[in-house]
């Protein structure tokens, strides 16, 4: 881009280095990547060093320093996508489209890249092409796309006009994504826009709001399950000239897509929840961090926000509440799983590499730009709205003793009815499997790769924080699937790619574990290897962040629950096989000396 064009972009963003993500997005929208010259000009305008820009760009999956083709296809490589036929699609792109895997076709037209779960597990295989979502891909559809790309058609023309259900067809969104809502509860039931803010919150003090949330015993719905009331209270008590409410819509855990549906169907509830949180903690500003994969919703969500602003629900005195003002914006991510970690999400919003911060201080004390910040999941905000509406008591009466309320789960994989289910906590896995029409189930991955892989003897376990906790992902694998090859290997590759690389164990161990897996799969594994894997995996708990803590879970939980699958592949009657192939190692020496090794 020209110096002038870049300057205009920077000017629009007030030459604020914290707006770097937005600036980079605009450049990428324009030309697909950032050039060295762009970096130089940005550095001058934003007063960030060139190297800082470079390190930020290099951190994110969807930013690039060189062209990734006129059309850039990011084909999802999640375990679910694999079992729904990703390979076939990829083959078409490569063989018929002349694409190169993880590179650009020689003519520079099409780039083909792998990307982890894009939140479409209920309609895989799916791909992200120039920021738009294409779901339920078939070989035929892939050929059609290639044909159109070669003709140079704009992406809009490749899209069908048969849009998805519900508000997917909204004129500001026009996506072919389907909601697949299968079971509705209080969160998903239709509700009147900003009713709670108007009717209830306006009559309550911030303390009373906080009281209800605490009474409800709501816990964070992103996966970690931290008590929301407590988080809000800490932030309320923290000192700061300003405070922030962040909505974490960086739904990156493979197999999860419930936030996608809430963002599509319930954006007003989410925003209402953010306003309520802002009221309770004393914040004036909100940021909704939207994962890049959901970019197709950005215009739509901005339209909703603008409408609410015009209707007086955002800005000064929302819904007429005196002495309170709250406004918000959307921050688009750029492809990084670890950005779903709250402090990494804040770093990213500040325009930096999404590396988790050391704690303390916690974000509720020192978060975005150093101000106290509450970061909550999309669903948590929706639940908060219902809690204020119907009372903490009511919410507390739902669910189990220590897991209150309802939970949205995203079900995918080998089942008849993949989609979104709103369940009270307390269902057994067996209930769920029956509900979704799963047959001959071999394994269920609860809570995504960072969760637990459950075997069929454990199907009576209960969905709740103290037993089978989940941030929303339930992936089902039936007897056709191999636990190690189809599931564990894929998940480990995911963690290797997504580690930020800062902590030593997280940088090295997943890689080593994957090498062990390869060894076992190649038939060279021994019982010693299993012991090593368990021992090494246990070290992950000293990493800095949640990703680091759980990055060995696929192996640890499968070793626990599917040990026989490993044992079947081990060399019999052998405790140990060296990693060194002596014959291979002595080959060079043998050549020099012209002698046959005696081994």
């Amino acid at each position, binding site marked *: 881009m020209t110096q002038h064009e870049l300057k205009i972009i920077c000017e629009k963003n007030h030459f604020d280095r914290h707006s770097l993500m937005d600036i980079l997005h605009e450049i990428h929208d324009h030309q697909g990547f950032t050039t060295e010259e762009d970096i130089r000009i940005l550095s001058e305008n934003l007063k960030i060093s060139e190297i800082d820009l470079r390190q930020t760009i290099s951190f994110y999956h969807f930013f690039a320093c060189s062209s990734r083709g006129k059309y850039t296809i990011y084909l999802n490589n999640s375990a679910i996508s694999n079992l729904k036929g990703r390979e076939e699609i990829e083959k078409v792109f490569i063989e018929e489209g002349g694409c190169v895997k993880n590179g650009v076709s020689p003519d520079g037209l099409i780039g083909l890249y792998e990307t982890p779960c894009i939140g479409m597990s209920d309609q895989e295989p799916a791909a992200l092409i120039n920021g738009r979502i294409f779901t339920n891909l078939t070989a035929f559809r892939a050929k059609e796309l290639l044909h159109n790309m070669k003709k140079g058609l704009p992406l809009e023309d490749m899209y069908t006009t048969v849009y998805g259900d519900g508000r997917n067809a909204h004129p500001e969104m026009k996506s072919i994504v389907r909601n697949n809502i299968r079971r509705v509860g209080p969160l998903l039931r239709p509700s009147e826009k900003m009713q709670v803010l108007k009717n209830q919150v306006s009559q309550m003090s911030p303390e009373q709001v906080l009281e209800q949330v605490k009474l409800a015993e709501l816990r964070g719905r992103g996966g970690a399950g931290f008590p929301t009331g407590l988080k809000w209270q800490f932030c309320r008590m923290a000192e700061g000239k300003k405070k922030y409410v962040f909505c974490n819509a960086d739904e990156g855990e493979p197999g999860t897509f419930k936030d996608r549906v809430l963002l599509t169907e319930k954006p007003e509830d989410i925003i209402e929840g953010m306003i309520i949180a802002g009221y309770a903690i004393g914040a004036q500003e909100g940021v909704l961090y939207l994962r890049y994969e959901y970019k197709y919703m950005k215009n739509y969500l901005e339209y909703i926000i603008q409408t609410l602003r015009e209707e007086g629900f955002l800005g000064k005195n929302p819904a007429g509440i005196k002495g309170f003002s709250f406004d918000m914006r959307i921050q688009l991510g750029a492809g990084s799983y670890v950005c779903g970690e709250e402090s990494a999400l804040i770093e990213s919003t500040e325009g930096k590499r999404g590396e988790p911060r050391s704690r303390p201080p916690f974000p509720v004390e020192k978060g975005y730009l150093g101000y106290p910040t509450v970061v909550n999941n999309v669903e948590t905000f929706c639940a908060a709205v219902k809690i204020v509406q119907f009372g903490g008591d009511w919410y507390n009466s739902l669910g189990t003793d220590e897991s209150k309320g309802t939970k949205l789960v995203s079900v995918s994989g080998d089942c008849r009815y993949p989609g979104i289910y709103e369940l009270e906590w307390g269902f057994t896995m067996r209930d769920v499997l029956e509900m979704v029409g799963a047959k001959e189930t071999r394994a269920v991955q609860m809570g995504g790769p960072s969760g637990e892989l459950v075997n069929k003897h454990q199907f009576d376990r209960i969905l709740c924080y103290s037993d089978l906790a989940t941030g929303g992902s339930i992936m089902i694998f039936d007897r056709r699937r191999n636990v190690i090859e189809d599931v564990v290997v894929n998940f480990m590759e995911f963690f290797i790619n997504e580690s930020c690389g800062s902590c030593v164990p997280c940088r*090295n161990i997943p890689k080593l574990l994957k*090498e062990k897996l390869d060894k076992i799969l190649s038939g060279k594994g021994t019982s010693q290897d299993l012991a090593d894997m368990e021992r*090494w995996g246990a070290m992950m708990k000293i990493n*800095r962040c949640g990703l680091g803590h759980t990055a060995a879970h696929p192996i640890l939980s499968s070793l626990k629950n599917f040990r026989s699958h490993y044992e079947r592949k081990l060399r019999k009657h052998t405790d140990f096989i060296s990693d060194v192939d002596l014959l291979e190692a002595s080959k060079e020496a043998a050549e020099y000396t012209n002698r046959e090794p005696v081994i």
Partner: protein
Amino acid sequence: MVAYIDNKPYDIIEGETILNFLRRHLGPYPVPTLCDAPNLEPYGSCRVCSVDVALEKNGRSKALASCHTQITEGQYIYPDSDNIRRMRKSILELVLSDHPLDCLTCEVNGNCALQSVAYKIGIRDVRYPDGETHLHREKDLSHPYMTSDLSKCINCYRCVRACDEVQGEFVLSMAGRGFDSYIIKGQDVSFAESDCVSCGACAQACPTNAISDVFESKSLVPRSTTRTICTYCGVGCNLEVATLNGEIKSIRAPYDAEANQGHTCLKGRYAFGFYNHEDRLRSPLLKKNGVFEEISWDEAYGIMVDKFHSIKKEYGPDAIGGISSSRCTNEENYLMQKFIRAVIGTNNIDGCARVCHSPTALGMQRSFGTGAATNSIKDLKVTDCILVIGANPTDAHPVTGAKMKQFAMKGKTTIVIDPRKTELARYATYHIAMRPGTNVAVLNMMLYYIIDAGLDDKEFISNRTEGYEDFRKEILRLDMDKMAEISGADRKLVKEAALAYASAGNAMSFHGLGVTEHTQGTFTVQLIADLAMITGNIGRPGVGVNPLRGQNNVQGSADMGVQPHQGAGYLDVTNPEINQKYFKFYGVAVPSEVGLKIPEMFDASIDDKLKALWIIGEDVVQTDPNTQKVKKALRNLDFLVVQELFMTETAKEADLVLPGASFLEKDGTFTNGERRIQRVQQVVEPVGNSKVDGQIIVDVMNRMGYYQPDYDAAIMLEEISQIVPFFKGVTWDRLGTNGLQWPVDESGKDTEILHIDRFKRGKGKFAYHDFRETDEIAEHGSKYPYIITTNRELEHYNCGAMTRRTANVEILKEDIVLINPADAQTKGIKDGDLVCVESPRGKVDIKAQLTEEVKPGVLSTTFHFPEIMINNITGDVHDTEAKCPEYKVVAVDFRKSRKQHLRKAGVLE
């Protein structure tokens, strides 16, 4: 409040980290660490420092990284439990699984954090299998100083953090993520191609040999080091110099140094190679028939004594003068002025402060009563706003400059007043780029806007100052439109900056030679003082007026009396009482007439009034303005002695050349820009037949019949402390590791901040000065419509005599002139062309660099290289008060040179 270590109670400090808590109670190395470093913020990437933390005795514990986890009351810390020990071992093995095990042939063998941690933990082998590694990475030997071998990198981020947090250069960074993340330099290029400023902070920070330097500084074993003070600027960095068999191997920066906290610039750390360079003068030289011949010290002394005696006898003592050196120690400067005053009997003693900070000393003395920085550099940590006028600290005072850059990059209010877009200006909140020579106009505008907005601190003004009412009236009478027109500064910007400074809470000002080297230099300093007083920014941490001293001991040489009007301790030589005091102390009568300043000495020589001159460590030919005039003056002398390290342009003019010693070869003290007197300690013996400068002076004094004991820093300090009031409590021993900031009272207590309750002169004095155009522009401006202003480059120091004899020349090998592209276009000049810059004095050919760093109408260059001799064109105009030359405003015109190859500077006939 207590917490427990292995179930024993210990007190805790609120907010401290577990690591700090352990260090306080168990000693410096309670747990192994890799990514932690003394001068960096906690980071927490290696996890080796993890400890078990439980909430109850022997209760369920959690492993937490001690470096960034805060301790809380009642916690039970188990720093070395079985669990932790196993875990540490595993982490170390993980690190080693991607690290070459070539310790025996590694430079840092024996001085490697990774190695010693592995040793402490007890690692014999790595149990992880060989997997994918990064051992194939190649060495980078592209740079004259910096080296890297990233196969040894353990991704601890220490170098990245040092580059960011210490130097603020942002050259190093981590690219990519996860297992594939790796250190990059610049845009992933080599050290040489990157913007690295070679400060070496990364090399010092790196725990392994992944980043080092050509001196293999990390092979340094602490017991062979000497701690001393850097010679390259007024920051006063402490250096730890490693020697082997009497030869200097490398230099590092001690972390406990107040002045530099483990940091230096490339000059301090790497540019020591000059000390035994083959060009060093190794014997006294006498010029016979235009050719220098080696003579013995006895002969040299004999000639000096004869000449000085005979000239004194024939023409009187005032026909002799001395120029002392700000690169020499306090003790040597004291001796030199004592020699001139007590032995020769004249006040014709001056030093290089004349051409740099003499207006600061004079101006601040007039306003406050003391001509030294009011505050300390560490106040940067507590101030809310910095105002930097006419200084380019990132080049000229790199360690302090880096701190300022950090300050600015944190988004704190930074105001830069400078005609050039200096590095700091690029990060500043406000950059006022006025026409060179109009400081007074800009500062008056600031004062106007502050008064106009009612932001003057009335309480401070009425309690602590005098002369405000008149001052205020004069300021308010000024026409802002006219001032804006004169200075070319944007009114709105000046106003915003003024209000930001006035309402900041604590605001600190810094200034450099861009303030002093002007016709109105002293007045500008007074206005800066006015600015501080009008806003009450005096007498507490984080405020004040703080000149950035150029040479390492400019402060000290002035303190010691190297100026014609004030003796040791700034005592007025014309005051009869003082004269008596000196008489008693020196035991001989001392003159009471003010002597000659340097430019006056040159005039006096041309007028046949000055006959002999002894110059120590200053290259006046290359660095003083109007070279041809300086040469003429020196050639007109009967006798010129030059005491030097190298055959400089000035030494070439001498009748007798004496080989002095560098800072690495002598004991003594330097006083840095924040009045900190620090110990300079001899690292090696003087090369060849050279001598410690102080000893040379002592020898001559004794031979001229004045008894002075042999040069010994401690004894000299004792003498100085008896005559210089603010040195009263200074002794060699008391100075210790980090020195003392004067005034030092009898008990040895020093002073961080001056003028706390009252000014040295009683009340602070407001002084109004209107802008006056310099004669240079008034007389020559129409014929020579451009202004050239001179400045410094990071890599070189002053005349470059020392830095040009180090590998620094590989980084920057010539003087260049900066030209705005618009001006270049008008004159048809391309980047890299030779241009001929012409002033009323002469012309030089110099290579052009086109840059927006200078505004149209302004050129900028340096005088580090004798090949260019830029001072052929600089002028004769001086500060009206202190006689500091106006290097910063020279009227010139320029064109593309007719010949496009470099030749020696020519002079207009």
